[in-house]
């Protein structure tokens, strides 16, 4: 097939995937998750275990060593059918602790330790490089096999150029896919759906080639068996050591590979999906492996002996002249490689940004942790990490020469990630596992793996001199990389697996037995090991009242995004029986907030950021002992008491708030009465005085006119005051007539801005608007809504005390409601007054006699209630901020 058509079809396929992801994301955004969260999609997404290694490499593996390739799929099968042991617990822990990656899991288990996060991240990145190189190599190979020069002399570039194009394209694709939106959430519905589609493509492609081989090229299964018996691999060599060792390595890898962890634990939406996947995923593996041996046998039989067995899936249909089938196989291989690279690099990028970039940044500039825009940094670091990960993969491909068998490269990565296994499995089953033990074990295992398997894989004299292979470093014979401690007869892979896992486990256990865990560590250990016994209620670390809720809100907005943070705070406040957006910083609330933040930036970082605001988390060993020694009965009793008491506290707080409000209102009412009599009396006095003068007569006409005008002005003022009062009482009684109609929001704001510009015309205001968002038609009473806008804008003009005043008007549409925020850059409204500003006659300062009698916002509130909307004060926006929410379509009430 001509090279350029091949590239075009790849691009078309990628665009198709992009559309699938985009559509899925849109669905998810609208909250219609439906089948996006079905066990089927979950199982199919798990199939990223089958990469190009399976698609191309397994056939090559079978052609070289018979049935041994099956271990790579039987190992995961055992892990999955044994889901009740490990996977169920991992998924439960992952959901309860909002784990973002395998590094996050290990770091949170051992006391939210940053050190462990860094170690796991480094191991994962290094171990992933051969794996990514494998994908690049297979795609490059398939290109070189499949592509032919075009008629006009446009020949395919060499393999190295292809590899660099593939790496660059994949990096771009992953960045577009995985870090598209500014939302730093860890679940990617779009990607998971695209991966599921790719899973179907590769399965269909491999099975199609298999069916072609068994029923078209051979005469059905019986003939196929005869051909297997006649082939070069009829007598395979089962080496018991390799058989068991590879089963173990594959089983460990399916849990420990960052991308498997990502789809299995992080993207898991429902624990029951795991139950389905426990048999459905092995079934998928079964289907993928079923035709591997027939394809390998047929390839050995039909193709020339110098053909690369890794490419049989592609070259066999090509040699038989089946262009369409070959194209399908090519796309299947392309799918396997792309899906692996996408998820792997996203998982690694999350780990790098959460465990390396964020902690470093927090240490460098702790003060900006709460104010700077963290989300931008997180996304940027993820994008760069994706590029770096792919760059490393490409470097490995170049260094290793790009000629090794695919399966051999993949196994290097498997043994590398298996180093997480002791820390992870002991961590979730044994409370005695400690941070130092885990760090020691993983470091030792990683070093042994690098020394005996990873570095030697570049070949003698590339990294390790050939002399070291032969005689050991400095002539120490028992340190030879392929014969540690003099064990020279073992297969190199098995040798590395055996020694790295053994030394890793020994170091881990010794370290754990000899060290004493810190308090947070013991707390987390108990929470992980006993995840099924308890609900999330572990002893809590945060002390009451040390952090200002407003600061917490500001910080959360930077990480979770404005809307999500506000919604979260509002729900929490409601749970505590408070109105508004600022809950009390109770330990419960702080713990929930921390866990929520951990879902975005990882446990260790979230913990550190909270500590910036709330001081150290105060858990002592005594606290833990106290919790542990309380008998269960007392705990239950106290739990009941506690819940009753909480109920009481909540009611009491509501009462206290109501009482305070009443007190203040009564004081205000008194103040208002005296004020209103004053307001009424002043104009009355002048009217009376001037009318008395007028009745006396004998005045020059210009004075009569002058006095008349004064009387008229004062009468107008009185009327305005009385109008306001009347308006308010009409609104409050709900007898107001609404003029419903469709009007454009942008025009309404224009009107309001024009009218409000008469207030303090001498102040120049910068208005920051979002015109495209404003272009919405709302069915409402436009005049009333404009009245509210005018009021808010004039208030900003009157009271904003910034030197260069600015007003930001932002509009958002969510569900059937439109919210319009008016945010200025003044000093805002003090916290103690925020609850009162919407009350009648409230006026914060007396120094500005602004004309009204403090009725403006009260009228606004009543208007909004009549329009079926709300008006609220938004704290924590850096100035006075009001949020107006109206329904998109206001229906006239039936009654």
């Amino acid at each position, binding site marked *: 097939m001509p090279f350029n058509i091949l590239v075009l079809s790849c691009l078309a396929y990628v665009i198709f995937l992009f559309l699938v992801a985009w559509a899925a994301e849109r669905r998810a955004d609208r909250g219609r998750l439906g089948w996006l969260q079905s066990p089927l999609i979950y199982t199919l997404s798990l199939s990223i275990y089958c990469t190009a290694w399976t698609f191309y490499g397994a056939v090559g593996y079978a052609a070289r060593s*018979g*049935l041994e390739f*099956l271990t790579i799929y*039987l190992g995961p*099968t*055992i*892990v*999955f*059918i*044994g*889901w*009740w*042991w490990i996977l169920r617990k991992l998924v439960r822990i992952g*959901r*309860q602790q909002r784990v973002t990656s395998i590094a996050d899991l290990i770091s949170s288990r051992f006391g939210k330790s940053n050190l462990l996060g860094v170690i796991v991240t480094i191991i994962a990145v290094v171990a992933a490089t051969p794996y990514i190189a494998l994908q690049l190599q297979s795609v490059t190979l398939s290109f070189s096999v499949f592509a032919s020069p075009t008629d006009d002399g446009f020949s395919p570039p060499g393999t190295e150029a292809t590899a660099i194009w593939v790496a660059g394209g994949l990096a771009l694709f992953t960045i577009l896919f995985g870090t598209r939106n500014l939302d730093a959430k860890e679940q990617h519905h779009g990607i998971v759906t695209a991966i599921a589609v790719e899973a179907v493509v590769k399965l269909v492609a491999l099975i199609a080639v298999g069916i072609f081989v068994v029923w078209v090229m051979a005469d059905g299964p019986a003939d196929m*068996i005869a051909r*297997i*018996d006649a*082939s070069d691999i*009829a*007598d*395979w*060599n*089962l*080496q*018991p050591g390799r*058989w*068991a060792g590879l*089963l173990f390595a594959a089983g460990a890898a399916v849990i420990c590979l960052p991308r498997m962890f990502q789809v299995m634990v992080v993207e898991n939406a429902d*624990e*029951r999906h795991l*139950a*389905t996947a*426990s*048999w459905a995923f*092995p*079934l998928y593996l*079964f289907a993928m*492996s*079923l035709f591997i*041996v027939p394809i390998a046998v047929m390839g050995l039989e039909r193709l020339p002996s110098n053909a690369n067995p890794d490419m049989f899936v592609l070259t066999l249909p090509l040699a038989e002249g089946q262009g369409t089938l070959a194209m399908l196989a090519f796309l299947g291989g392309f799918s396997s490689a792309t899906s692996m690279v996408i998820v792997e690099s996203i998982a690694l990028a999350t780990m790098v940004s959460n465990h390396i970039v964020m902690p470093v940044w927090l240490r460098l500039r702790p003060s900006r942790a709460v104010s700077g825009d963290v989300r931008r940094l997180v996304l940027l670091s993820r994008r760069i990490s994706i590029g770096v990960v792919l760059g490393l993969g490409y470097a490995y491909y170049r260094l290793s020469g790009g000629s090794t068998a695919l399966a051999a490269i993949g196994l290097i990565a498997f043994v590398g990630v298996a180093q997480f296994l002791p820390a992870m499995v002991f961590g979730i089953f044994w409370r005695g596992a400690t941070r130092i033990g885990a760090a020691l074990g993983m470091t030792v295992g990683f070093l042994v793996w690098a020394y005996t398997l990873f570095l030697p894989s570049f070949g003698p004299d590339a990294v390790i001199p050939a002399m070291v292979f032969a005689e050991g470093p400095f002539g120490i014979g028992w340190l030879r990389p392929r014969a540690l401690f003099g064990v020279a007869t073992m297969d190199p892979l098995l040798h590395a697996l055996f020694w790295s896992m053994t030394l890793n486990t020994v170091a881990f256990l010794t370290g754990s037995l000899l060290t004493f865990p810190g308090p947070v560590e013991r707390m987390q250990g108990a929470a992980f090991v006993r995840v*099924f*016994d*308890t*609900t*999330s*209620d572990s002893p809590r670390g945060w002390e009451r009242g040390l952090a200002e809720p407003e600061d917490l809100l500001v910080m959360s907005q930077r990480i979770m995004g404005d809307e999500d943070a506000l*919604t*979260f705070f509002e*729900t*929490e406040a409601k749970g505590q029986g408070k109105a508004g957006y600022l809950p009390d910083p109770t330990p419960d609330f702080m713990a*929930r907030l921390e*866990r*929520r933040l951990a879902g975005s930036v990882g446990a260790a970082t979230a913990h550190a950021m909270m500590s910036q605001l709330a001081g150290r988390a105060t858990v002592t060993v005594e606290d833990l002992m106290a919790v542990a020694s309380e*008998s*269960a*009965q007392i*705990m*239950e009793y106290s*739990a009941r008491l506690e819940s009753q008491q909480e109920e009481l506290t909540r009611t009491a707080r509501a009462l206290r708030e109501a009482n305070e409000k009443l007190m203040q209102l009564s004081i205000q009412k008194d103040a208002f009465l005296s004020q209103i009599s004053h307001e009424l009396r002043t104009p009355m006095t002048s009217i009376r005085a001037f009318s008395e003068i007028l009745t006396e007569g004998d005045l020059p006409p210009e004075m009569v006119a002058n006095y008349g005008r004064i009387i008229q002005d004062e009468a107008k003022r009185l009327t305005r005051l009385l109008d306001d009062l009347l308006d308010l009482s009409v609104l409050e009684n709900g007898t107001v007539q609404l003029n419903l109609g469709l009007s454009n929001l942008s025009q309404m704001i224009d009107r309001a801005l024009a009218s409000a510009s008469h207030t303090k015309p001498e102040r120049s205001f910068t208005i920051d608007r979002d015109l495209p968002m404003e272009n919405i038609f709302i069915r409402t009473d436009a005049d009333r809504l404009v009245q509210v806008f005018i009021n808010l804008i004039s208030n900003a003009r009157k009271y904003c005390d910034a030197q260069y005043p600015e007003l930001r008007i932002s509009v958002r549409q969510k569900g059937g409601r439109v919210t319009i925020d008016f945010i200025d850059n003044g000093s805002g409204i003090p916290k103690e007054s925020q609850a009162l500003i919407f009350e009648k006659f409230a006026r914060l300062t007396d120094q500005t006699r602004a004309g009204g009698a403090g009725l403006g916002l009260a009228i606004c509130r009543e208007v909004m209630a009549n329009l079926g909307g709300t008006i609220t004060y938004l704290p924590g926006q850096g100035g006075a901020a009001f949020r107006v929410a109206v329904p998109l379509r206001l229906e006239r009430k039936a009654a």
Partner: protein
Amino acid sequence: MARTPRTPPLFLRPASYRQRRRRDAARLLPVVGVFLILLPVLWAPQDTFHRDTAPDGIYLFVAWAVLIGLAMLISRSLTAPEDEDDGAAPVDQDFGR
């Protein structure tokens, strides 16, 4: 958090008894799997000279299919809506989403 100190009953009602045995089966299945998959080691195919790729392959795939079938039966019966009385705590709520 209510972990009552009541001593668990010595004998269970049939329904919960069955539920527990189903869990035991789920725990046992991987052991069976390891046994079936390691079994070919005993035939020591590397020492023999007859053509054993085909028969061994068929054995492994059949064993594999049996494991998948068993896993399906067990996972179906485990997730059937059945409230048991021994302490599977309610799932942690997803706060604020």
